[in-house]
């Protein structure tokens, strides 16, 4: 699989999601030291994530993989440091190469792995790969998995009659049946329907089952604790789970007092929905940030979204995440 080629400036929510993730890495890695870690992900042709992880977290050991040789050539051209390894590798091969990758870096003992999947047609393969990677992780490692949770991928691209033709009880039951046919044992057995807004939590439940399976089959008593669960929609809706790995003898913790996005459980998803703001709008909201979202909405005098409720929710989301809110500007280099 290859990384998505759409630049971050066209995906403000993904940008925010990644910013929070980088914050999380900063929160976690001091327990063992940044130099102990290797950051592993599909870097895309520009290696944007690798550059940011290096600059912001100090992790010096960076590894990028892609199944296309020409992308790897371009990554090698763009690498932010001479020591970044870019290799041609399919995500299905990552699990078996993991130990070898770590051994490329002196003194590295732990990994941060981001499996950034976009294809809605390969969910089973993606969960199987996730389990295979998770099984080979060690206490102190961090695993992040992104999956496609665009609801039309479950109901014949929005065909509102598909559920009736298939003899399902309801659209939600039909979506659930379709997802079960795709991922089988990875879907929670007690899930009977997927509401229009319920796909992220259904897939997070499936990732949780996947990691339980990995925990059992690793034979190493690994625990996978979710530390960041997010969902956003720039084009298609994407959902991401970030977990930390520990065991009884080797604890590795995220402190919920200082890490504000710590989920209560696997169902506690942080919705990232950044409103598309002009600079003038952003300054106005920043100026009135201590007011309630409803008051700010009224003060603006126009809706930021289709309905008043959605506008207030967008302001609410902005208030919570404004530290991560992007300001993209045109520059000439």
């Amino acid at each position: 699989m290859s990384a998505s080629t759409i630049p971050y400036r066209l995906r403000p929510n993904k940008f925010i999601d990644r910013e929070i993730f980088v914050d999380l890495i900063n929160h976690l890695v001091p327990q063992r030291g940044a130099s102990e870690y290797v950051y592993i992900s599909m870097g895309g042709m520009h290696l944007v994530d690798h550059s940011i992880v290096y600059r912001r977290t100090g992790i010096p050991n960076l590894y990028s993989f892609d199944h296309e040789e020409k992308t790897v050539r371009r990554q090698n051209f763009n690498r932010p440091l001479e020591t970044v390894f870019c290799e041609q590798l399919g995500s299905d091969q990552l699990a078996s190469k993991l130990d070898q990758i770590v051994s490329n870096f002196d003194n590295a003992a732990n990994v941060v792995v981001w499996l950034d999947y976009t294809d809605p047609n390969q969910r089973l393969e993606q969960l199987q790969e996730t389990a295979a990677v998770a099984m080979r992780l060690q206490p102190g490692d961090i695993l992040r998995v992104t999956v496609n949770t665009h609801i039309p991928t479950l109901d014949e691209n929005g065909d509102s009659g598909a559920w009736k033709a298939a003899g399902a009880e309801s659209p939600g039951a039909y979506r659930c049946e379709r997802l079960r046919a795709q991922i089988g044992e990875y879907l929670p057995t007690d899930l009977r329907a997927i509401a229009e807004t319920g796909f992220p939590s259904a897939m997070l439940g499936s990732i949780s089952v996947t990691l339980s399976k990995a925990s059992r089959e690793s034979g190493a008593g690994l625990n996978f604790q979710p530390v960041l669960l997010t969902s956003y929609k720039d084009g298609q809706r994407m959902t991401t789970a970030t977990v930390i790995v520990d065991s009884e003898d080797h604890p590795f913790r995220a402190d919920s007092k200082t890490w504000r996005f710590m989920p209560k459980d696997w169902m506690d998803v942080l919705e990232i929905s950044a409103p598309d703001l002009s600079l003038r709008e952003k300054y106005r909201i920043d100026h009135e940030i201590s007011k309630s979202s409803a008051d700010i909405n009224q003060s603006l005098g126009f809706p930021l979204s289709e309905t008043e409720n959605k506008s207030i929710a967008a302001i609410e989301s902005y208030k919570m995440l404004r530290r991560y809110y992007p300001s993209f500007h045109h520059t000439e280099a």
Partner: protein
Amino acid sequence: MTEETPAELFGGPTKRFFVSMLTRDIELDDAILDLVDNCIDGAMRTTSAALDSDKPYAGFRADLTVTPEKFEISDNCGGIPSDYIEEAFQLGRPNIKKDGDLPTVGMYGIGMKRAIFKMGKTATVFSNADDGAFHVDYSAQWLNPENTEWTLPISRQGRKNGDNGVRILVSDLKDEISKAFSNKSFLNRLMAGIQDHFGYLMQKGFEVSVNGVDLVPKTLGLYTSAHSGESEIRPFDYSGLFDSVEIRVTVGFFRALVREAEIDKETEAPVDAEAAGISVVCNDRVILLGDRTIKTGWGDAGVPRYHPQFRSIAGLIEFRSNDAEKLPISTTKRGLDAGSDVYFAARKAVTEGLKTFTSFTNRFKGIESEANEFFAKSARSDVKTTIRLAQEHGTQVRGANAKKYVPVLPEPTNKESRKRISFIRPDDEVRAVSEYLFQDSGQQPSIVGAECFDRFLKEARK
């Protein structure tokens, strides 16, 4: 030369064999399914409804609590009557005919004990039946493999108020079992396994819950339409009697044909988890699920081997008999005895059914979407409760007490002989041609190849 002294050897079993060896022969979830099986046997003995009626098990249920701290299963299926107590706690069942004319599957009398030995350091079995209540304790001492004591303490009382039933409580779990019970994926698989294996009994009214979640039956539905002279998509259906065992075999499509692009993907990695293949059901219990091997006729008697292109085909072999010994079941209750004559009789019908649908699939190879109109005219129906094609419209099978219905399936409208062309080219080159033909470099390779062919065919025919 020394004279031989006559002597005796102990030829009996040891406690260790039962409490720590026999338990290795069975997976934990299978051991739990054995306990649910016992509840169902109880319901069969207790229900007043005819077992072939629609809902003979309505009102009967088994509730399981599976946590890292304890395992508990309780039912309202009649309890263990006095006559059965001794045999229920013996290791092995001396009287195989105990259930007479009831279609129970437990034959060897080992399931409950093996499950207890597998899970617990101590356990208690409670029963409340019409003729009295009792409980039996398995102490840590009794379960010690070194212990040679075989007698068990039983505490008997009069019948208690409330439902008649059995409750098995394992309050002190072995460490590895406690760990498994804390694992979400184990519980998920256990619940799915119960839905799969007892789906047909649950369809007939039996209810099961795990940790408060009511489970839903999983049964097979196949595409069919009402019988007529028209060629339409209907299943192959067989119904017969062999050595007092009723046999039903139904094979057909549970989804529309698999498109070529999906097949290409499947050869690289699994693309979905649909349950294609043949399942075997004995007295409403599933003992083999979605099999795609020679065991159920794939790759034998003219049937091609299973291949992803046949992923739309599924079927059900059903056996029913009041004499459990005649059913093709091995000791685990979920093992198939594929060498028995009754199974061979059914397997012959399955291969005929499979052949019908693999041939149809081959006839539509490369033009799978043309078959969609036929699927649109039919609908998926539950095999066990709805499809009756053999009984109602079947023809007599020569030399057997059986009827079969062989569907007349639609033919492709374009019957020209077809050939498959396949070749491999570098990814970059396929993308370049795709860009040239479609102004989009990401088209499916098969579509790019077909377009190249079609354009040159037009040229060639000018």
